């Protein structure tokens, strides 16, 4: 039997029903645009145009082939067997009953699993020994003709353990708390000035502890994967081929990590991930199930093996945002100017794979202060590993910092916006470099006008609607515009159309839609003539969709490729003309501190009776460089704000204190905001062009939208009730009694 891997999906092009792209009668004014802007501009549907999603019709009609819907011949289905203890040894694993279930093809355990060549990534070292490292870890798998048979058989695998207990309970004063190695999450500890002097001489001091909860990405699409080892044509190991269909934030991460672990060269692994049903950081790196499926498929070479996690399993092995306990001290003089800032955070990490929720980073860039100390510690526990979740670090840190700033505003009697104005830094407090662009004050002022901030009295309890106390809050946001290395793009002219190719990934964010806009702009052609091919290995190597870097990093390389294309082929290229290029950091960029900024405004109602909190209105105003597509950008901002609202009011994974597994492991138990919770959210932005992040003028927008949202809501709760809640989420038990 031969199975040829299906070609990468054809590029979704706008069909006849797609909204037309407006082309004005007159060419756009050529006046004197900023030097780096290209003149084709908006008239051709390029950067700045309100373009509808090209993949929208396919998605809403169910025809977009997500990883689990990729058609493969004669698939087999896997279901994982997971450990019931946190730490220990498997004494016996009895697969007899499981093997008897009709349709079972393979029962995989550590006894028969293929050996890995390296332990490059601890989380992916599955079925290599009898050790159990956390509850819910994969200790086996069943592959069967149907998913039902696989699941039934998996439940029949009998395991005897030597249970060694385990340390699973996180608390801030855990004796094992330690400063992680530099590199695990930037610099874990830094100090400047004389902090003790700054604290001692303060007119006002805020000293409080803030906690954030364990959060789960919970994308709609549950980490599906299909893996196929092609039948080996001979004994030459270089002839081995592995094809994987999965949902990831960029195929290169899975390819480069799996290859050495499996003893393959990267180009022996093909990965297709054309559509991704939500990721939020959880699909940035491969997780244990990927290796589980790959190992099972290796024993069934020639047969594609499929697996999609259950919702419960998504709370066990694909990562989460670790909780934090943060002590923040803000000292200020009589005028509210900061004299010292101390931010200390501690969070759990898994013993088997260190991930640090770096909460203190944001405090190094947000406000001016002569004296500052920040320190990040971790507590290694016998739990599953955490991972990046939308604005990792900044989300958690901003809750503490922006709530503390509100407390300082109360202490000083200043309006919270005025307090931030007085502490606005001229240069980056972290590096001392000037800002590439920083328009936080413009965001605050624009937002205050639009939101009606003047209605706020600053005196809790004054505004009410029946039993509901009303209040308004504000918080600032930032997220770094980091530089990703080594991203390439290729542009080819064929059949009268341009194709832009690179390993970008569309997580529902709009990459399919906006990458052609960037290319159209740079090529000076209408966007309708440009297609994209993304989401597969074999395309030019690119940065994954992560760190809010996708659009400007990919855009940078697309613009470079377009310029190379025009240099090489001119305005009238021959059919088949092609060019590729690497995007480079704009010259002079390293002299600047580069960040996105934003301001969130929230109005809440808090029931005096029940303690229930309802967010009546929210507005976010952002300064994120040039907005490539206002429609998809607004969706990113509002999506981030919604996720922040959800974190503020609902989200908390609860661990069993004995085993460390998440007990509310489904969407009935782990609440995320329902439609009824999201009443009136709006996002806006200030005009900005940042030439030092990339020639697109854009900065990142995917993560800054969530940063600071819980603080804005919590500050509004204080304004309504006079109660300061420092622990997320803001549930009724914290507001009654």
């Amino acid at each position, binding site marked *: 039997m031969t199975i040829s891997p299906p070609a990468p999906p054809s590029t979704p092009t706008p069909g006849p029903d797609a909204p037309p792209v407006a082309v004005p009668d007159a060419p756009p004014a050529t006046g004197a645009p900023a030097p780096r802007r290209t003149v084709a501009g908006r008239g051709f549907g390029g950067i700045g145009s309100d373009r509808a999603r090209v993949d929208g019709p396919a998605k809403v009609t169910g025809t977009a082939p997500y990883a689990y819907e990729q058609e493969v011949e004669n698939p087999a289905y896997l279901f994982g067997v997971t450990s019931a203890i946190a730490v220990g040894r498997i004494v016996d694993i009895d697969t007899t009953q499981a093997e008897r279930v009709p349709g079972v093809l393979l029962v995989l355990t550590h006894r028969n699993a293929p050996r890995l060549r390296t332990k490059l990534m601890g989380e992916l070292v599955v079925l290599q020994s009898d050790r159990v490292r956390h509850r819910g870890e994969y200790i086996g798998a069943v592959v069967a003709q149907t998913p039902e048979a696989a699941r039934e058989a998996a439940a029949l695998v009998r395991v005897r353990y030597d249970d060694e207990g385990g340390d699973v309970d996180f608390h801030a004063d855990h004796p094992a708390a330690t400063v992680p190695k530099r590199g695990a999450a930037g610099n874990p500890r830094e100090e400047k000035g004389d902090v003790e002097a700054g604290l001692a001489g303060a007119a006002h001091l805020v000293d409080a502890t803030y906690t954030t909860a364990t959060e789960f990405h919970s994308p709609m699409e549950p980490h599906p994967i299909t893996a196929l080892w092609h039948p080996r044509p001979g004994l030459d190991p270089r002839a081995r081929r592995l094809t994987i269909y999965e949902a990831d934030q960029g195929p290169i991460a899975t390819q480069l990590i799996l290859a050495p672990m499996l003893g393959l060269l990267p180009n022996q692994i093909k990965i297709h991930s054309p559509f991704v049903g939500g990721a939020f950081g959880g699909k940035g790196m491969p997780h244990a199930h990927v290796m589980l499926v790959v190992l099972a498929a290796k024993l069934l070479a020639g047969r594609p093996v499929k697996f999609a996690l259950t919702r419960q399993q998504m709370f066990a092995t694909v990562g989460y945002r670790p909780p934090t306990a943060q002590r923040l001290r803000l000292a200020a003089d009589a005028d509210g100017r900061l004299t010292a800032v101390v931010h200390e955070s501690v969070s759990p990490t898994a013993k088997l794979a260190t991930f640090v929720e770096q909460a203190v980073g944001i405090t190094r860039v947000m406000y001016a202060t002569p004296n500052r100390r920040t320190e990040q510690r971790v507590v290694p526990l016998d739990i599953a590993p955490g991972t990046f979740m939308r604005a990792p670090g900044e989300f958690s840190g901003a809750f503490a910092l922006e709530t503390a700033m509100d407390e300082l505003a109360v202490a000083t009697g200043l309006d919270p916006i005025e307090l931030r104005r007085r502490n606005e830094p001229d240069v980056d407090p972290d590096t001392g470099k000037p800002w590439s662009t920083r328009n936080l004050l413009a965001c605050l002022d624009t937002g205050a006008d639009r939101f009606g901030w003047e209605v706020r009295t600053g005196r809790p309890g004054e505004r009410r609607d029946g039993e509901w106390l009303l209040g308004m809050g504000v918080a600032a946001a930032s997220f770094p515009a980091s530089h990703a290395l080594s991203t390439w793009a290729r542009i080819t002219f064929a059949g009268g159309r341009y194709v832009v190719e690179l390993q970008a990934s569309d997580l529902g964010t709009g990459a399919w839609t906006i990458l052609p806009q960037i290319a159209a702009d740079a090529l000076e052609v209408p966007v309708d003539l440009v297609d994209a091919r993304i989401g597969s290995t074999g395309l030019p190597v690119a940065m994954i969709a992560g760190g809010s870097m996708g659009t400007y990093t990919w855009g940078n390389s697309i613009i470079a490729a377009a310029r190379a294309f025009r240099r090489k082929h001119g305005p009238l290229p021959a059919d088949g003309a092609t060019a590729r290029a690497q995007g480079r950091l704009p010259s002079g960029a390293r002299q600047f501190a580069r960040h996105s900024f934003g301001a969130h405004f929230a109005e809440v109602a808090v029931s005096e009776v029940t303690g229930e909190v309802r967010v009546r209105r929210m507005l976010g105003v952002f300064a994120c460089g040039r907005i490539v597509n206002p429609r998809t950008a607004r969706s990113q901002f509002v999506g981030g704000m919604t996720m922040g609202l959800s974190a503020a009011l609902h989200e908390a994974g609860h661990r069993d204190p004995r085993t460390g597994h998440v007990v509310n492991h489904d969407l009935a138990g782990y609440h995320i905001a329902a439609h009824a919770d999201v009443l009136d959210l709006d996002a806006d932005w200030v005009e900005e062009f940042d030439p030092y992040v990339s020639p697109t003028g854009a900065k990142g927008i995917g993560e800054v939208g969530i940063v600071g949202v819980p603080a804005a809501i919590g500050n509004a709760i204080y304004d309504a009730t006079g109660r300061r809640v420092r622990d997320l989420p803001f549930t009724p038990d*914290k507001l009654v009694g």
Partner: protein
Amino acid sequence: MRPFVYERATDVADALDRAGDGAVFLAGGTNLVDHLRLGVRSAERLVDITRIGLDEVEELPGGGLRVGALVRNSDLAAHPALRRGFPVVAQALLAGASGQLRNMATTGGNLLQRTRCVYFQDVTMPCTKRDPGSGCSALEGYAAGNAIFETSPRCMAVHPSDLCVALVALDAVVRTTGPAGDREIPMTELYRRAEDGPETDTHLVPGELITHVDLPPLAPGTRSAYRKVRERASYAFALVSVAAALDVVDGRVRDARLGFGGVCHRPFRARRAEEALVGGPADAAAFAAAIDAELAHARPGRDNAAKVPILRNTALAVLAGLADEGARS
């Protein structure tokens, strides 16, 4: 999931004939199908009873209602006679689940839904309700959702229904048929306490089928309401809930009915509070004394103590609202 046989009953007698031998009645399936997937429950045969009738609401002489066991939650909540005479029931229905689930869920099925205790739904953890004799994981585990009334170390779970809280408060009667003939069971006696043995939720016997729920009439002038507290505005089980009916004549309470949800192994009838209310003045001090008389018997644990003040506030607000409503009319 184990393979099972699916059968469709044609009428009540046919359904009863098909009972036994590992058969389970399937109505809306909103809870049962989840349990089959999770391994919480298995069935050799599913007997679909959604086509056996029992899907009408009948107005009884004297103002009562007879609700067929297979009337969908959405249809019942929208029924004019229910909305007119029993607002507490309509409000309770609409506070439950989501629109999609209410379109599927039935009246009888709602009465028989199982607890959402996280340990009950996780087959890898001990749970005596699911696996008799295995113990209660919620005692030393995640306990924020635990019961505060009629608590027992045998099982700390709470009943999840909204509808049942209203039905218990209104002295609704469950009509059943089964191998031993027809029965009428007051809602207040349908459910077992945790102490009675949490392995089964109700006093129904195997093969017994709920056919109707009767709502006895309330005295003219009685006001009723349901209020559910939850941090998510929709699609969430109750942190606590209150069903109340209040008949106030000349400033004094003639009749009071109170049910509490989210606080007990069964839908909880607050009889001590009712006794304290009846005959007394319809004012805030009397309401507070009555609710406190009930709450004196609450036994919160380390993680669920907030249920007490939230329940107190909510019950007082509901009673005050009903008294105001009556006074204004």
